[in-house]
């Protein structure tokens, strides 16, 4: 029997907000794989786009506090399901690792001692740690009817010097996971093109245009669904799918799954259990 895995967990604001379907999905899925999540006690927002756009110090300090809290809690690995959070945590960690003076300053600012680590993992990396062979062995319902376009978005793979994950131009890590589940991922051209990120409220047209192009390319390459590992991408591609279609004078009907939905479905978990029934696009001519 495989030993249970215990990971530190940094949900981030989105997963406790309107993207709580993502948290439902990953908790159900990881629970079925004997992975327990130890949430960082009293974690704070990583600062997201607004911190790095408006205050450079804050953009280091906010993630740094979370790294310090994790260390205090004895967590050596922290799973951050949102790539904005994971990228900011990694970037702040690297900045302080190479500049001891900065680390000291930030430790003072955030009222917690910052050390090296913990190691930050994204959702794909969690499945890689569990092991694709083990995943393959645990599949009860191969996803053979699914032809997903694996969508990475921006911050899972960029900037490569910060996230050091997969290949920034031709990534294949997500495809490897879904292929292990029996699905048939398509090769397409918009894997790492931006969906419009945090502009959903502030400048909706940008999101509609960029996300629309992504959906159009997925369809053009034969996909019947999308897979993502980012709550922001999910909102832009799922909640905004109908509007994006209108913007481009096209009609889209592509379910957008979280990668944990895919794994969960293959393990035999139900749509309600995974929270898939809470998505906007359910597919099948909606």
């Amino acid at each position, binding site marked *: 029997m495989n030993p249970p895995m215990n990971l530190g967990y940094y949900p981030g604001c989105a997963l406790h907000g309107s993207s709580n379907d993502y948290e439902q999905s990953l908790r159900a899925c990881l629970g079925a794989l004997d992975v327990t999540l130890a949430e960082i006690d009293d974690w704070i927002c990583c600062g997201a786009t607004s911190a790095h756009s408006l205050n450079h110090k804050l953009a280091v300090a906010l993630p740094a506090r979370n790294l310090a809290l994790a260390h205090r809690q004895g967590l050596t690995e922290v799973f951050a399901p949102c790539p904005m959070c994971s990228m900011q945590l990694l970037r702040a960690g690297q900045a302080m690792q190479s500049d001891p003076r900065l680390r000291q300053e930030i430790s003072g600012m955030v009222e917690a001692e910052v050390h090296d680590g913990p190691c930050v993992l994204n959702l794909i990396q969690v499945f890689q740690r569990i092991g694709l062979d083990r995943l393959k062995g645990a599949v009860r319902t191969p996803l053979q009817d699914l032809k997903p376009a694996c969508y990475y978005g921006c911050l899972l793979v960029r900037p490569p010097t910060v996230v050091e994950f997969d290949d*920034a*131009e*031709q990534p294949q890590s997500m495809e490897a996971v879904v292929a292990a589940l029996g699905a048939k991922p398509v090769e397409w*051209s918009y894997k790492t093109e931006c969906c419009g990120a945090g502009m959903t409220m502030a400048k909706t047209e940008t999101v509609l245009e960029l996300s629309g192009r992504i959906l159009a390319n997925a369809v053009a390459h034969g996909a019947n669904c999308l897979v993502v590992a980012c709550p922001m991408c999910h909102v832009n591609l799922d909640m905004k799918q109908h509007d994006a279609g209108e913007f481009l004078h096209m009609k889209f009907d592509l379910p957008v799954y979280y990668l944990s939905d895919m794994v969960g479905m293959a393990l035999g978990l139900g749509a309600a259990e995974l929270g898939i029934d809470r998505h906007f696009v359910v597919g099948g001519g909606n």
Partner: protein
Amino acid sequence: MSRIGVFVCWCGENIARTVDVQKVVDAIAELPGVRSAQHYKYMCADPGQAMIREKIAAEKLDGVVVASCSPHMHLKTFRRAVATAGLNPYLLEMANIREQCSWVHHDRDLATAKAIGLIGMAVAKVRHDRKLEPIRVPVTRRALVIGGGVAGIQAALDIADSGYEVVLVERDPSIGGKMAGLSETFPTLDCSQCILTPRMVEAGQHPRIRLYTYSEVEGVEGFIGNFKVTIRQKARYVDMTKCTGCGECSKVCPLKRNPSEFDYGMGMRPAIYMPFPQAVPARPVIDKKTCAKIIRNGCGLCEKKCAPGAINFKDTDRMVEEQVGAIVVATGYKLYSIGREQNSDKVRGYGEYGYGKYKDVIDSLQFERLVSASGPTNGELKRPSDGKIPQKVVFISCVGSRDNAKGLQYCSKICCMYTAKHTMLYKHKVHSGEAHVFYMDIRAGGKGYDEFVRRAIEQDGAKYYRGRVSKVTEENGKLIVRGADTLAGIPVIIEADMVVLAAAMRPADGVAELAQMLNVGYDENGFLMESHPKLRPVETNAAGVFVCGACQAPKDIPEAVAQASAAASKVAVTFAASELTREPEIAHINEQTCAACFACVRTCPYHAVEKAEIRARNGALIKHTARVNPGLCMGCGTCVAVCPSKSADIEGFSEEEIYSMVEALV
């Protein structure tokens, strides 16, 4: 030694402005052993040299110190001057009171005191100098040329035409190099093979050129004038003495679909194949990696078909030794590989351009083969995916070059010119086609070059956009190229039928190993190092080894040919005398005190120290010792530093001399 003459130079104002030369002369004249001291405005000029000669005669000097500029400038001048006066030229020392004194200090008093100190050191040293004679080594007047591209061929022909034998070694089954695969050359648009093949044939038939094709240099021993080279002749499985080059074997070979190396994968060749129709030698070779007979003892049709019985499946690699006196390295280049696989972890590929993923994204040499009249598509530009003629071609410059992030910082020099050429070749074939070029700068500095690029733009209608391309993707058989034009300040997106990448020029594979064999340096990009970038562009710091062509740096054909002739002339200079002379300031080992620990043998960077035995007349072994080969030693002093028994020393820079200089100063 007690009759030393000291000559202090003003060097015009260069020294005299800062150093009080009269005061210096007065101080030096007081030193023991100094017979005469004087100063003069320009010691290196004729009157200055005459002064030295006169004083040597008049005062019967037995040692001379010239205090002036760096020995790099005029050591040879002054040595010749004292030699003509009858004094051994190695009884001369120079004190550098210019670069090491007047040019770096401002305070007159301090600089003068320092000059006196420097000259005092030189006086102390010259007192311990010994008469030395230049070392003479015999010369084997044969040359080795490594690489049979246009540079190697040119060098070989020039050396052979000078009257010396040349051994020409080429790794591929035919000579010709990259130029043999080009379509037309800039700026004249000459057919490349038409201008090259006469040279290839001449090299193949020249009575003084011994050609080893499908061969590699595996070992080099010895020194200038006396190299012993080991060459591996790889097995062709074809008996060259019997084969008539009729080509029937290739016709009958059933394994027709191997990617052709000559066509860079744009065409196919059988397992037994002629490299290309104009190959020299015009004989086929069997690819042992794919031949069914060699792998699993199947087939064998070519052997049955061959009338003269030239197929020999029992062929093996052969090792050959050649003795030569000089080596010319002309190993040429390869193209940066663009995709993920690179031969260094400091170099990265362009995943964003889809090379290797999309069939119609090709590199510049592949494009040359597609437009070449004798190419895999007979000169019709058919794109690899579906054979259709592309109506819109995008050419991307600087792929790999000038890209610090990918690991290659340098400019590859020829791509701007050949890209303009490509647009012209394309437009000449596809009149209605559109040629689009993304560039950063246009480098067209040669004769007629700038005019050539303007012709491509103004007459042949090529469209040039000043900006790099960010990404290439494929949709419905079209390649979407996302670039920019910074002159207009806008993104530019083009839907192309084919994309040609101008990939960086890099040194050929295996050059680092070859350079180590030859003791030739190479830079961080793998290009071989010349002795001096301005004044000695074809020599290396390994005596007797010369470089030419793209292995030294990216360059075009006229430059490669010029360098090849230059290297050949250096070889001729080396062979001009029946003996070579070398400077005698080299190491020697006191064989009586040598403990035979051989630390020197292990540490010598030039492999110049050998293990030797001293035997009695009856053959009994007396002792082991280390012994310096006077032909190879470069006088670096490493052996002196590591010798635990103080048996190693350098002539002209002995420990005694060095210590005397230090004592003179203290």
